[in-house]
């Protein structure tokens, strides 16, 4: 979506605020409730484009690094060095990839949207699991078992919800989220 500078600024801020809100939307699925922060990360890339979407993620991470309790584990720069730091870092490539691929999905196919959100959700685990393994000293396989597999059912739900919500929003608000033609970022 082509936006003016000011509109971009406001939308980036709104998505950063939505990522914070995601911490407070918990869905009881299995023993550990899932939070919706990465749902909004994926949606930011998809709806705003790769540049504005990743800017929203950077803003969210900056708010957390400054000490505001905006992550599911609180706030503070020290959290980036903790076991979950890799997942936080993974939000950035996730928004970039989702936005880039959404720009390529010009025929607006549902299966392509599902694939885009799946790839976006999976890329969060790449730095996440690697960093978890590095910090805790767990072997890579054990890190996968503790840091990825338990969360996959939640991710399937988020991918399905993201696909449904994104497509509905495009239908309800076509003037705000028109189909991508020449890339949406300025």
């Amino acid at each position: 979506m082509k936006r003016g500078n000011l509109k971009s600024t406001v939308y980036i801020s709104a998505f950063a605020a939505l990522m914070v809100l995601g911490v407070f939307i918990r869905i009881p699925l299995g023993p550990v409730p899932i939070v919706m922060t990465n749902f909004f990360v994926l949606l930011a890339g998809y709806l705003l484009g790769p540049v504005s979407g990743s800017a929203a993620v950077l803003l969210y991470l900056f708010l957390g690094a400054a000490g505001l309790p905006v992550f599911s584990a609180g706030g503070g720069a020290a959290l980036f060095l903790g076991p979950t730091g890799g997942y936080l870092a993974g939000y950035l490539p996730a928004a970039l990839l989702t936005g880039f691929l959404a720009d390529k999905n010009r025929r607006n196919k549902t299966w392509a949207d599902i694939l885009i959100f799946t790839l976006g959700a999976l890329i969060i685990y790449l730095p996440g699991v690697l960093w978890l393994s590095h910090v805790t000293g767990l072997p890579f396989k054990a890190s996968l078992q503790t840091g990825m597999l338990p969360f996959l059912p939640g991710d399937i739900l988020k991918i399905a919800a993201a696909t449904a919500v994104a497509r509905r929003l495009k239908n309800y608000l076509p003037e705000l989220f028109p189909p991508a033609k020449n890339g949406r970022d300025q």
Partner: protein
Amino acid sequence: MDRVIFRYFPGDSLIHRFDPRIKLPGCALFCYAALQPGPRNLAITAGALLAAFLFARIPLKTLLIDFLRFVPLLTALFLAVFFSSDDGGPLVPAALAAGRFALLILAGNLLIQTTALSRISAAVRWFLTPLPRRLAGRLGTMIGLSVGLIPLFFQELEESRDALKARGLRARKQPLRWAVKLLTPLLARVFLRTEEMAEAMEGRCYSDERSSLPLKAQGIDWLFGLAVILLVLAICQT
């Protein structure tokens, strides 16, 4: 408005009056200190935070409402550490981990509740002075806007959640349907509100290069900064 989080409470306490350019890094340093292991460190940082809350005179009810939202998370953390720890009895490390994260949450809440958005924005602009003025201005605006939008969006979320509850839709029974029914109207309202806000700002000729609030650090601000540094040093040396 009782259920809204991240609210600023106007006041004239010492904590309210501290220069945000010292308060922001002070909060980040405090979070670092709070994450240091050991019950003694936890007690020192908890004591320091309690004193700060007393000075700030934030209503206890508000404090509890804000904090209760994080209780499920803290419980999950406690249980995760409780069932994975095998040294020194699982109860102590689990309680310490939950206590540390509770302190992080409370410290962030204190910062937001005692610092006006305009002052946070001005402080961020000041920190970003080495960057081009336009970029620093835009970043400061975005930070101020997003912190300001959180309570508004939270209120929208609570209303949407109540509406779903009234219609008998439960997250536990139909999680996907619940998520789609909650998030679609919520996001539609949020984006319409965002669009209105952007138009209102455009209508007022808002620019990235506008002048920010003047800030002035006084002796008491430097004393506060020094106290936080001493606290961190004392904790890190033990």
